[in-house]
Each structure stands twice: as C-alpha cells, then as structure tokens.
C-alpha cells in the first residue's frame, strides 16, 4: 500500500478540519469586517460605501496622530529602556546561587495577574493625596504629583505600570537562555582571568542575542496592541495624553457615538503598522541577531 502521507488526498483530509476552523474564525471575520472599513456603518442604520474617507479622517484627526505617537513611545520604551533592564535582571538572577526559584517566581507573578487588576492597584499607588508614591516623595520634600490627572505625568505613569507587569515575563525567557549556555565556556573564561562583568558582556550577551531578538519582536507587537492598561487607568485621558491607537478605536467604535466602519478602519491601520514595523525589524536587525555565529 502506498504510504498514506504520500497520497495528496489523505493529506488534505487530515488538515481540512483545522483549515476550516482557521478560515471560519480567523480569515472570514477579518475579510468581512475589512469590508466595513470602507463604509460608514454605525451599527444600526444602512451603511453607505465611503471608500478611503475613513482612513483619511483617521490620519487627519490630530488626536489619532497623537495616539500613533503614543504607541511609538510605548514601543520605544519597551525596546530601549525595558530590554536593557530585562537583560540586567536576568543576568543578576542567573548569578545567584540560592533562592533563584523564588526570584524567578516573584518577577513572573505580575504578568499572570489580570491587567485590569494591576491598573486599579497602581491607580491606588498613584493616588495624589493618600497614595504611597506621593507619600514617599513627600519624605524627600517633593510636592504631590497628580500622576494620572496631569497630561505630562500620565503617560510615564502608565509606562511604568506596564513595564512592571510585563518585564517579569521576558526576564524568565532571557533567564532560560542564559542558563542554557554551556558552563565550559564560562569556566574557560574564568581560567583566562575574565571578571564577572567581562564574561557577561562578551560571552553571555552575544550568545543570547537570538532570544533578545524574539523579545524585541514581542515587545513591538505588544506595544502596538496595548489597550487594556490604558483604558483601566486613564481611559486614554487626560485629554488624550495616554491615548493609543487601540483605545482611540474603542472610544470611536463603541463610545457615545458608535461608528463601526471607522473603528474597523482603525483596526486595519493598527494591523498594517504592526506588520510594517515587525517586517522592518526582521529584515534589518533580526537577520543579524538570528544569523548566528554558532
């Protein structure tokens, strides 16, 4: 009997159910809702085809442009501030002899707690009059900062809370990569007289570049998708200071004046941005980092 997997019909039969589910729950909704991006449907009445005007309106709205910039700030913060700190913490945890499991767990726990809960808890920390953060600042004589009410402090506040939640997840990933490096390499370096720092910078970090590349890609994608932390802490306020593309979409498509056509257009814009950014990264640094000098 011919081997079943060589028979194209059997092959198709095996993967057909999965393809069906994929098509039904992913492809079909994406394609059919993309159609609404070119209409002005408000969910109730008949819609009219409006072509590209939803997209033009989005880019013409200064609040949306602000949201794009905020998304880029999120990504920039994740890649240029969080990642060095993640590598540093992972190196520190890798170098402790005892209680490593305890440290791993403590940094990881925030990433499994619901984002809404974290948003509310940090809302209490940032409370201007009785919150612990301002009380700590008062010890140093600094005045009360209205963290979530002032446009210039709201975004940093949200960025810090977001970092606190997600850094642990990436630290554990990078830690696994660090611990996978064969010990012989480090032992050889110690014999040659390398200090801890020299070993970290010249051996460990270059060998974990592939995983750092993955973390960068995840951070870019995550920075494009961020919405729940913003909605829970500030609803995009004050006055759009923390608005990101996805929260703008939620307010437009489902707020006081629902406009599902416009909301879908914005969803497509977010998708396009994420695609472009991750592709650019993949074809420039990604190739180099994953190229492998092994």
């Amino acid at each position, binding site marked *: 009997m011919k081997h079943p997997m060589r028979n194209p019909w059997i092959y198709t039969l095996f993967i057909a159910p999965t393809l069906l589910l994929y098509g039904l729950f992913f492809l079909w909704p994406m394609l059919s809702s993309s159609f609404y991006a070119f209409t002005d449907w408000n*969910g*109730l*009445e008949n819609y009219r085809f409006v072509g590209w005007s939803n997209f033009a309106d989005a880019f013409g709205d200064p*609040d949306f442009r602000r949201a794009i910039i905020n998304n880029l700030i999120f990504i920039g913060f994740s890649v240029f501030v969080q990642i060095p700190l993640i590598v540093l913490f992972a190196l520190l945890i890798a170098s402790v002899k005892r209680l490593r499991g305890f440290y791993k767990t403590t940094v990881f726990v925030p990433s499994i707690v619901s984002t809404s809960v974290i948003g509310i808890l940090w809302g209490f920390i940032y409370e*201007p009059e009785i919150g612990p953060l301002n009380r700590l600042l008062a010890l140093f004589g600094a005045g009360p900062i*209205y*963290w*979530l*009410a*002032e*446009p210039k402090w*709201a975004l940093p506040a949200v960025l810090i809370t977001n970092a606190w939640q997600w850094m642990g997840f990436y630290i554990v990933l990078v830690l696994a990569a660090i611990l996978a490096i064969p010990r012989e390499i480090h032992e050889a370096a110690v014999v040659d007289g390398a200090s801890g720092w020299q070993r970290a910078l010249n051996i460990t970090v270059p060998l974990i570049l592939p995983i750092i590349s993955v973390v960068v890609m995840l951070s870019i994608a995550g920075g494009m998708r961020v919405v729940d932390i913003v909605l829970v802490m*500030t*609803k995009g*306020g*004050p*006055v759009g200071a923390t608005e990101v593309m996805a929260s703008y979409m939620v307010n437009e498509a489902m*707020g*006081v*004046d*629902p406009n*599902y056509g416009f909301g879908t257009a914005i969803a497509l814009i977010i998708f396009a941005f994420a695609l472009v950014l991750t592709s650019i990264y993949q074809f420039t640094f990604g190739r180099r980092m994953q190229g492998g000098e092994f």
Partner: protein
Amino acid sequence: MAAGNPPKIFDLFGGAGDALKYAKAGRLLDVTPIIEELGIADKFLNLSQFTLDGKVYGLPIGGSTEGFFYSIPLFEQYNIKVPTTWEELEAAAETLKQNGITPFAMGSKGAWVPLMMVNTLIGRYAGPEAIDGFPAGTHAWNSPEVTAAFAKYEEWVNKGYFTKGELGLEYADMLNQFVTGKAGMMFDGSWRSSVFKDPEQAGELTGKVGFFPMPPVPGGKGDQTFVNGNYSNGYGFSADLNERELAAVKAFIKNMYSEEMQLRGLLEDGVLPSMKLSDDAIGKVEDPLVKQIMETMRQTGGAFSHFDSTVSSDVYKESEAQIQKLIAGQATAAQVTEALQKVQQEANAKS
C-alpha cells in the same frame, strides 16, 4: 440593538443620541396607542425626549433636575448664606477657597460630569431656548452668550474653584470629595439626593445636605428662573413582539406607570415623578432635601433639557472632548465653542 434584536423591555435614555436614534432605525415599539388606551397619555409631564414624528417610543420613569448640593455644616462654619443671587454664589465660592475648602467638588475623568454645570450655565447665559436651538440651527455654539457661559466655567477653573487633579477623578470620587468635607458644594443631579439619607454612603454629612438652583446670571438671556429638567430615563420596548409579549408589555406599562410606583420612586429613591401626582401624594414626602428640590421645581417658570438629549451623538462627543481640553487649559472658551459649532453645522447639514 445593533444586531436587530433588542430585549423586550429595557432601560432606555431619551433624546437624539439614544431613543430617537433607535426609533428611526425601527427598533422600538410605538407605545402611543397603548398609553391612549390606558388613559395615561396626558399624565406625563414631558414626553418630548421619546417622541419622534408625533409618536411616542418610550416612557420616562422619573425626572431629575441639576443644581447645587451644599454642605450645611461648612456653610454654617464659615457663615455663608444659601446663595440666591450670582454675587452671593461667587462670594460663597471665594470664602470657601480662602479657608482651604474646595468650592465645587468635581471629577471630570468622565466628561459628562462637568457638562452638567456647563449645560445649566448655557441655559442661564444664552437662555433656555438655546438648548433646543442648537440642532434647530436657531442658536449657535459660538454665539457670544454661549461663549460667555464657557468663559465663566474657564474662569472658575483658573481661580482653582474645582477639585485639584479632577481629570483623574471619577463621578464617585466627586461625591467622596463632598461627603468628606473637602468641598463645600457639588453641582449634581437630583438623583443623588437618596445618597444623603444613607449613612453608609454619606458618612458624616448624612441629612446635612441642602439644595439650591443656579441663581440668575446678571445680563443673562431668557427666563432666569428656569431650571434644568430631564425626563429622559425610562423604559423602551422592542418593536418585534408577538401577541403574548405585547400583552405583557401593556401590563408592565399599566403597573409601572401608576401613581403608586411614581410615589415610591419619590419617597424611596428621591427620583422626581415623570407623571402628574395628586397633591396628597406629594404631601407624603418627608425628606427635607427632596422637599427642597421639589419646591425648586414648583417655583420655576419652566424647565430646559440637557443638551445631551437634544443634539446628535457626534456633537455630544465633541463637547465631551472640548470640555476636558478646557479644564486642562489646552483650549480657550472661544476655541471650544468654535469647534462645537463646526461639528453642529456638519450634523445639521446631514439631517
């Protein structure tokens, strides 16, 4: 609602943004024949927010008015008398400010909260007709009178009369500011009165809160004794009912919209009646705060709605964005009203 499948009976807000929009899309049951059959059609005080083309699509369960709640202990402590003129109101605010108390509690994270006071300021400065005049095109947002109303709000923001950090505070935080004695006055709707009877919610201020309407503005247009009167929360019914469901809806309307239920709402929740009540029903009210509110309603020349039930959703959404910009100091009153008029004109052109 969007899927064409509204519940059979549901809580509904009136006005152009909700009930009238759903009615135009054919989702709501026309209750005009039902209320005529039950004989209650002319007992309602104001059905305008549920009426489209002469047909009624929902029934308001109660009414509310928006005005100033004040803390009796704080007013006594600083010898402030209840303001009946504009100068007295501003003097009261200044006195409170000088003594380290925030004059007006405010939580503007939800933009609808500051818009309550803005609405009544518009009614005072530009006249009650302005509220309906915006969508009708007879009144403009960027007219000098409406801009003056926003400018007065801006002036109070700049003088620090509102809670500091208000853009980070929710509606519930505004109540806390008032109840914990950090603020002396709070502009809110009459629905809040039931909170001040409950020691768990009002704490030390239980039973020590009074109410007064916004005083006449010097130089304001129109009848300055009008107050805000909203008859916009009620019940709506799906247009898609079979025989038995229709009978159930009729029974619901008959039992819910009766003098007994209206009185219960008034006595237990402080919700003002949306139907005419007999005098001895009204006489049963004992809570002094509710009595003050009802006395205010009795003494006015009339009522004007909140613009959130007269203008279309896109204008209302713009007003939410603009008031927060005004509070954050990112827009002046003139810029706010120009932006609003622009959206209003586009909305008027579309309809």
